[in-house]
């Protein structure tokens, strides 16, 4: 049996002590082990940022790509080899800022990727600029005027874009987050796991102490129907004194993108030979030009 420890690598994370990324990392390792996946069954794709260094600290296949391009690389990887479980781990700047267009497209496309967004509501690695999810009025060192825009709401946008698994996790609750990730791993299409992740260095406001009393679990909400879009939209907009975590919306009715691609019916693309047919069968292509 694979154990969570099998997913740790020799490299010590460079995250600040107390960083919420530790919680996400631990939950991911546990969830992978619980799901029975081995390191070689997994492809971790990240971008650039504090959180995006996760694959460097993890024993699993991985690619740390460019800032913002995480989902694009992951989509190509998934289509080339859907035999591997493709999981993205990247920051809110990477996922919703620089990578905003890929985010909306991945949701809409319902590509079979688990997308864990380490949402600390700030740019960590570049030292504290505001991010798309920073609230209006957030004043980073670098911008004394503060953020003028309203915060980006990933859950609501994912819902509007046709998402099929939309959830929020919280890095301060290992057990819940582990469970949430296992659920996401079981989803057939694109699964968003937006994680509340304290950045103890640059975003003092969303600290553990601020978040812990506010979060509450959707699974405890009797009567909540996670397949009801209108209800999900209301929940997605909820923020402040009470912050819902867990699965906001889920439907298994839509096939994943890769299930609909004819060329993938014969199995993962990379396992197929370079040529799908014999050479003479390609000769007929020349007939098109007679």
């Amino acid at each position, binding site marked *: 049996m694979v154990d969570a420890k099998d997913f740790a690598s020799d490299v010590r994370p460079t995250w600040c002590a107390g960083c919420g990324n530790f919680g996400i990392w631990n939950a991911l390792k546990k969830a992978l082990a619980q799901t029975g996946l081995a390191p070689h069954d997994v492809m971790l794709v990240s971008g650039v940022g504090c959180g995006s260094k996760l694959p460097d600290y993890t024993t699993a296949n991985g*690619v740390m790509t460019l800032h913002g391009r995480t989902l694009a690389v992951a989509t190509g990887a998934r289509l080339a080899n859907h035999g591997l479980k493709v999981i993205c781990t990247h920051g809110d700047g990477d996922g919703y800022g620089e990578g905003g267009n890929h985010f909306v497209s991945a949701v809409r496309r319902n590509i079979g990727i688990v997308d864990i967004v380490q949402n600390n509501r700030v740019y960590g690695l570049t030292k504290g600029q505001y991010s798309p999810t920073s609230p209006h009025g957030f004043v980073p060192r670098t911008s004394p005027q503060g953020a003028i825009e309203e915060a980006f709401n990933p859950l609501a946008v994912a819902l509007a874009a046709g998402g099929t698994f939309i959830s929020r996790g919280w890095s301060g609750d290992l057990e819940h987050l582990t469970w949430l990730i296992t659920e996401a791993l079981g989803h057939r299409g694109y699964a968003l796991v937006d994680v509340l992740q304290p950045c103890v260095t640059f975003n003092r406001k969303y600290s553990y102490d601020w978040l812990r009393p506010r979060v509450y679990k959707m699974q405890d909400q009797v009567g909540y129907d996670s397949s009801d879009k209108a209800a999900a939209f209301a929940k997605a907009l909820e923020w402040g004194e009470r912050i819902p975590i867990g699965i906001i919306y889920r439907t298994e009715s839509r096939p994943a993108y890769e299930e609909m691609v004819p060329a993938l019916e014969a199995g993962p693309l990379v396992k197929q030979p370079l040529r799908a047919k014999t050479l003479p069968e390609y000769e007929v292509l020349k007939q098109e030009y007679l």
Partner: protein
Amino acid sequence: MLVNDMTLKIGGEAGQGVESTGRGFAQALVRGGLYIFGLQDYHSRIRGGHNSYQIRVADHDIYSHDERVHLLLALTKVAIDEHLQEIVPGGGVIYDPALSVDEADLAAQSVKAFPVPLTKIAVDQGSKLMANTAAIGAAAGLTGYDMGVINSVIRDNFGKKGQEIVEANLRVAAAAHGFVKEKYAASFPFKLKKIEAPLRMLISGNQSLALGALLAGCRFVAGYPMTPGSPILEWFAVHSKEYGVVTKHSEDELAAINMVIGAAQMGVRAMTPTSGGGFSLMVEGLGLAGILEVPIVVVNVQRPGPATGLATRHEQGDLLFMLHAAQGEFLRIVLAPGTIEQCFEAGYRAFNLAEKYQSPAIILSDAFLAHSPRALDMDALDLDVPIDRGALLSDEELDGLTERYRRYAVTESGISPRALPGHPNAVYALGSDEHDEYGQICEDVAVRTQQNEKRMRKVEAARSEMKPPQQYGPPDAELTFLTWGSALGPVRMAADILSDQGQSANIVQIMDIWPLPVDKVTSALQGAKKLICVEQNYTGQLATLVRAYTGIEVDGLIRKYDGRPMSPEYILAHLKGVV
């Protein structure tokens, strides 16, 4: 009377079927054993404007159009206004008398007017929509061309619309043919005659490039539509189900190249076609492939810039951009085919080189090459292309691995044996930060130096494998043309004309642009008595490149930057100015 040596041109509005009519006639000529070279010219709009399709035809292989037109099929009055000057004395124009053309204007140019009631014939024998078929029939009648092949093309092209439509078109063509043959054929000296010949294809650069890539095992093509690169994506989309290729029209070009990187890292041969503007958006991704050492193929089918520029037209303005795109330094392979055959070759070689050197490979094509069909012998494209996956570790080799896999093992050649993700013995993560041999992020001076040098050693390794320039013509010629890309075709035709005139010229064409095989280029150019560079841009980019690396300065530069392709006449006219 001149047989099988002429140019036909069809001109009309976008939406009038200029391209399909031109292609149909060209097809009929090829089926009749003739060689043709087709030139398309169209605006960036969907309807209206003025488009044309020009067919140079001969009984021997030809490499470009030229500027003389012998027969114009004018679907609009504008077509005559636009092209009258191009028609040789004794040439003619077929048009519908409804266009109210003043025959005197034509006569003033010694051009013959051949009014044919195309629409009326179409309406009488079939329907109004078939006027173009009438034009084809008329052209056949005038040139004396065989109606059997014309009819075979009509049957094939209208076949899927049903027997009735086919029959009607055949009637229309026959009627127009009969009308013209009787009335005008005797007065038109340029004739076309079917000859016995093996089967030939009528194929363009984009198509042969796609074919080469498919045969090389390309199984993943992502792209965002951009003229003139997107026909390659569309070609794959049309063939995707049959040949098991995943094609993806992505949200933007940033996604396209990064998807291709993801697919290639998994081990699938993957490609993205685009044009310069889309390539601009792929620049960062190119560097990602460079540092990750992931083999990808990017096709840039050039069009005139800057920015949107002339979307449907031609230029070779991106050469130096390809060589230096993206921050930092890393190997990229750049192949610039100059013929349809070379497009096919580049299509498969790019994959082999990319995988061998674990680097991005760029195929630099251009609109003229992409869109202009030429008649090719069936065996001109040998589908049994070599496949070289480079230092790719097999499952068996990985099974036997005893130590931790080092994705970026430092080797003498700079190439590190590659394991595809998924094997339990080779679990690794790689990244766009500088990294150590295992792929772990690392900022050490020694590691940086080692990895940087390892990557850059691949440049020299690849350089030594790059092909020498292609050379054409007598070695001791008075004049040497240096050229690249589709300019080659017109240059070859110009050199032929010069030699017909008793002058001697040879040609050095550089297809393997980067890493520039400096020694091979130097030795190809060293004997040149007078070196003239011909390229389709303003600044003379190939000449600059050659000077930078060989020290050889050209004696003259023939440039063109008006969005229209070179022609042999243009080259000869400008030769006077530069020698």
